[in-house]
């Protein structure tokens, strides 16, 4: 976008925000409409699709067996990958993950990992030798802003929907048996992103707002309201005061969002 258009839009968005309004009619602290659909990919062990306004993210979970990391021989492994596939936006190009998709994957990963959402000890098959590996693949299908919150929400919803194969170990071989058990989870982290425009905080910035915000603050909260991950983004800053304010606001919104996840 040319810098002129950006400046005109910034002006317009700023004036609205001064009045507590936004381009798409929302209040400053409102999320867009959210829809969560679980189990959309029957062949994956778990999946969920999240619509946040026009932003659409699909997360698929695959479970395979693999070897544990040497320093955690009794823990299963979880990896998060994010693909900004080119059909989601004219700005996305085919190719290996760039810094944006890597940052997205790592923020989603951090929320799940640091909150101990998955009980990885229960994914161990044979200590030091064989464990279950949980692949969480974030697939952005339409980019209309705030990919982080949509992706994090879809990831947790997909994990809640994930079934683990039953198995037994015979002579060091893993034998997959009939039936499934749910993936063992101990928490359900919720991620909330705020934008700062003109020293005002807004919740869930969408695409047009993302192009003009000074800075972004993302916080993930655990079931008990504790913080489990944070990421500041964009080339702007926050005052210490804004961070604490933002934390309170994000905590409230996390509680609100969590209600959308039924379990």
């Amino acid at each position, binding site marked *: 976008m040319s810098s002129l258009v950006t400046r005109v839009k910034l002006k317009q968005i700023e004036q609205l925000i001064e009045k507590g309004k936004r381009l798409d009619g929302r209040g400053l602290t409102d999320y867009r409409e959210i829809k969560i659909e679980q189990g959309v*990919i029957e*062949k*994956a062990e778990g999946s969920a699709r999240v619509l946040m306004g026009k932003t659409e993210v699909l997360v*698929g979970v*695959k479970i395979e067996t693999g070897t544990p990391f040497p320093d955690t021989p009794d823990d299963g492994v979880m990896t998060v*990958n994010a693909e900004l596939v080119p*059909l989601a936006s004219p700005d996305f190009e085919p190719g290996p993950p760039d810094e944006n998709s890597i940052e997205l994957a790592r923020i989603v990963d951090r929320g799940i990992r640091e909150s101990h959402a998955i009980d990885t000890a229960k994914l161990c098959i044979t200590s030091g030798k064989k464990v279950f590996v949980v692949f969480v*693949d974030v*697939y952005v*299908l339409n980019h209309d802003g705030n990919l982080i919150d949509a992706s994090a929400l879809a990831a947790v919803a997909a994990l809640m929907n994930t079934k683990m194969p039953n198995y037994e170990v015979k002579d060091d071989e893993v034998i997959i048996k009939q039936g499934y058990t749910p993936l063992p989870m101990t928490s359900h982290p919720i991620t909330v992103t705020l934008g700062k425009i003109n020293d005002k905080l807004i919740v869930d910035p969408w695409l047009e707002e993302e192009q003009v915000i000074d800075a972004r603050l993302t916080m993930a909260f655990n079931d008990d309201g504790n913080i489990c991950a944070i990421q500041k983004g964009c080339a702007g800053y926050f005052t210490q005061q804004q961070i604490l304010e933002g934390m309170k606001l994000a905590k409230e919104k996390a509680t609100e969002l969590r209600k959308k996840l039924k379990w």
Partner: protein
Amino acid sequence: MNEKPEKLIDKKGLRLDGRKADELRPVKIEVGILPNADGSAYIEHGKNKILAAAFGPREMHPKHLSRPDRMVLRCRYHMAPFSVGERKSPAPSRREIELSKVIRESLEPAVFVEYYPRTGVDVFIEVLQADGGTRCASITAASLALADAGIPMRDIVVACAAGKVEDKVVLDLFDTEDKVGSADVPVAFMPNLNAVTLLQMDGILTPDEFEKAVSMAIDGCKKIYELQKEALKTKYMLLEAEEEVEE
């Protein structure tokens, strides 16, 4: 998981999923479902779930790939890591690169490439769930995405496979039939021009079986073509309805 079924066709001539030899799987098509793309389509063909989007005509990047006398069509067929049994690495496999090429060459005969010289059109296909016959379903969807983007076309391209399962030529193989069966013949077709734009085969067929498979696949294409037209109509009716509301 890997147990092979004993019989792919039962005594009544029905297949594992209850279909007759010349019966299609259920097909559901929606046009225009991706807001950011210039054109898009979603197809559920059996358990296949596939999204296709078209962007363009637009400036080519990098520029030196553009052509002074024609539009350049590019195509990427890509599978989501979770779309198949064992997780697939998101990096494009050799299979995906080949399919991207043959799919592009199956769509290109339908496009009036000379209308927009120096521009490019990109077709992006994402297989979200795969169950045999993804390349055909991808072509069926991609062709609609191009139409939805307003790219001028001679005809719609539609695709369907036939193959051989336990000595019988059958239509539209699903995953298990594809893997255990003895041949697969994907065909893409332009119904109004009576033109085959994709033809591949693996497995073994006698010349007679091959002839029968091609016929059967083309018949399948013609049935899916009706669904394509309906999906396009639905999209335009919705558009007209919206416009009326706006007026």
